[in-house]
């Protein structure tokens, strides 16, 4: 039985994607019903979360040439037949069979699904997962991930962008390795703003009441708000500064300035005209322009500073294919492979040399500032200082409360 071709109209394609994202596939359902629900039930009966230290599972990569990888939707190169060319090539080169699943709709939802096995250090069904910085930080501080042998990965060692080597939550990258990075900044419709936007305060202009969206994740939105208040988010700041930032957000919610808190869905709001400006991700703006075939949308890092996030490879304690996983991570640190992925996903690649490799694939993309930002731009996209688990919990709770006004 041949598969029906994907719809051409981007609107319909996005509707289909949404409908798919909200369905359980049979595979995840069966896997979930088999292990997760039973474990959840058992875990509910036992006193939860012991504080014992977990140890990595024995590596059976030598005998089992398999690997399973959980990633986000639309986050790897895919051809029209639905195959993943770079994964196919990896399988051919190494003989390792890769099970690739778009299993992560959000960090939290994925965690909720696997946490019972994860907290016990058991096999969660994935040898490799891709988690965003703030969530990766939680995993590291809870000791839920295996160390990665960067020494055994020549490409990663040579090509990891030096600026990303020392993550605040994982200095020297012992437990995590960036998969893709992205910038959070200001996005706008060029019809409404022919001259673009440069400062976050412009979003709070009363003339834009109800025409603004912000990202439904405290790290992204608050990073911009805190910096607009003059806070250096990589330096010293605490509850007082965060509280002041939350007050700014609350005011914009109660004034009706903010139309919606969304994930990627703000792209739909731009298209339907519901919003004209937003706190946005660089990759989305690039994709919208590609779909429109024109520069209908603009993106900039605000003058007082934007946010740089990465989604990171991590190996859960229960993973039994450490060596296979390292082979795969190292493979994606070859500049040519990284360029091939970047040409499809349009986020910022953490692999040095990918820009040169992109010249061979698509010279126009190699020049694009959204995919290969220049040093000055990257310099203004900052990361948070280390955030403790207590702070993370308090910050996300305050953010959720501010959202409802």
């Amino acid at each position: 039985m041949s598969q029906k071709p994907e719809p051409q109209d981007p609107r319909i394609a996005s509707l289909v994607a949404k409908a798919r994202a909200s369905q359980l596939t049979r595979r995840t359902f069966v896997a979930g019903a088999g292990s997760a629900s039973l474990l959840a039930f058992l875990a509910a009966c036992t006193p939860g979360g012991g504080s014992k230290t977990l140890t990595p599972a024995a590596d059976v990569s030598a005998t089992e040439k398999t690997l399973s990888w959980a990633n986000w939707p639309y986050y790897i190169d895919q051809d029209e037949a639905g195959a993943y060319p770079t994964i196919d090539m990896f399988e051919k080169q190494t003989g390792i069979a890769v099970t690739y699943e778009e299993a992560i709709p959000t960090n939290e939802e994925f965690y909720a699904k696997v946490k019972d096995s994860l907290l016990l250090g058991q096999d969660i069904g994935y040898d490799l997962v891709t988690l965003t910085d703030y969530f990766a930080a939680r995993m590291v501080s809870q000791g839920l991930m295996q160390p990665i042998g960067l020494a055994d990965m020549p490409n990663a060692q040579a090509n990891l962008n030096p600026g990303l080597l020392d993550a605040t939550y994982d200095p020297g990258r012992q437990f995590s390795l960036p998969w893709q990075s992205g910038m959070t900044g200001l996005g706008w419709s060029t019809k409404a703003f022919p001259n673009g936007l440069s400062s976050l305060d412009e979003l709070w202009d009363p003339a834009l009441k109800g025409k603004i969206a912000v990202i439904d994740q405290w790290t992204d939105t608050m990073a911009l708000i805190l910096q607009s208040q003059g806070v250096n988010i990589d330096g010293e700041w605490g509850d007082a500064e965060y509280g002041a930032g939350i007050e700014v957000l609350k005011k914009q919610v109660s004034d009706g300035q903010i139309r919606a808190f969304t994930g990627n869905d703000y792209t739909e709001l731009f298209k339907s005209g519901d919003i004209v400006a937003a706190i946005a991700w660089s990759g989305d703006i690039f994709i919208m322009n590609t779909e429109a075939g024109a520069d209908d949308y603009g993106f900039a890092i605000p003058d007082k500073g934007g946010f740089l996030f990465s989604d990171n490879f991590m190996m859960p304690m229960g993973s039994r294919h450490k060596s296979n996983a390292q082979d795969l991570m190292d493979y994606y640190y070859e500049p040519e492979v990284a360029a091939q992925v970047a040409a499809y996903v349009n986020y910022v690649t953490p692999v040095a040399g990918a820009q040169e490799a992109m010249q061979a694939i698509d010279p126009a993309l190699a020049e694009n500032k959204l995919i290969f930002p220049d040093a000055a731009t990257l310099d203004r996209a900052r990361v948070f200082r280390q955030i403790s688990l207590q702070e993370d919990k308090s910050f996300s709770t305050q953010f959720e409360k501010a959202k409802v006004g």
Partner: protein
Amino acid sequence: MALAGFANTSSRRTSAPMRRSRVAILLLLPGLAYLGLFFLAPLVSLVITSFEAPNPESFDIGSYVYSFQWQNYVAGVAEYWPIFLRSFVFAIIATVAALIIGYPIAYFIGVFLRGRASLQAFTLILVVAPFFISFLLRTLAWKQILGDDGWLVTTLKSLSIMPADGHITGTAFSVIFGLTYNFIPFMVLPIYASLERLDLRYLEASSDLYARPTTTFLKVTLPLSMPGVVSGTLLTFIPASGDYINASDDFLGGPSTQMVGNQIQANFLKLLDYPMAAVLSVVLMVIIMGVVTFYVRRSGTEDLV
């Protein structure tokens, strides 16, 4: 001999119901097992979760231990009562709107079109047809239609009916609209089912006794269709008060229209605060049960439900 015969019959008399009840229990087993496994066990787990306390040994997010932290309920109600209030106000308005729109439709199909089976079938299909498309897609389609660049808003603005900076999506109106739209079939079908059996001779009798059409409707038709109205309103009100799709920012809602379902989702999937999510779910269930019990008692149809 005769005695033996009596004994025989009497033993048969007792054993037949016994056998029957054994068969009945056997037949009930799958249903009971299903209810136990998929309703009772999750419910118990939910209530247990709602009393859990944060793990004192670690600051891990989403890590809770078994406890009897009843204060969870105080905190939940204190913090979320305005959202509960909003949810029930939205659900009540949507239910009343669905009743006002749905009753005439049901009456039209069940009484007006009586005797024209093919027309009845056709109109019923029209009522059910939206179900052929996913609930999410239908709601997303409305989001497009009601969007700021959609024809409706642009027309209203060009006619100056709507202020230039006004919008529909993200407001209480669009959420209630979405709830009403999505649950109308649940209102129409039960009312239709009771009106379809309505004996028209009662209406004739009523008019023979010089009742005006309004009186006939209020004294005869409406009371006879009450079972349908009650089940229709319940089928609309209960899911509407817990709905989290229509009010979500990604669909028809905005920051100022969040309902309890959205907060349960946020606590469960974003904050990983499982006890609070469980508290909100339990409180929602208790309130709905209270409201429904009161409603069914008042409408005097408890033996019908």
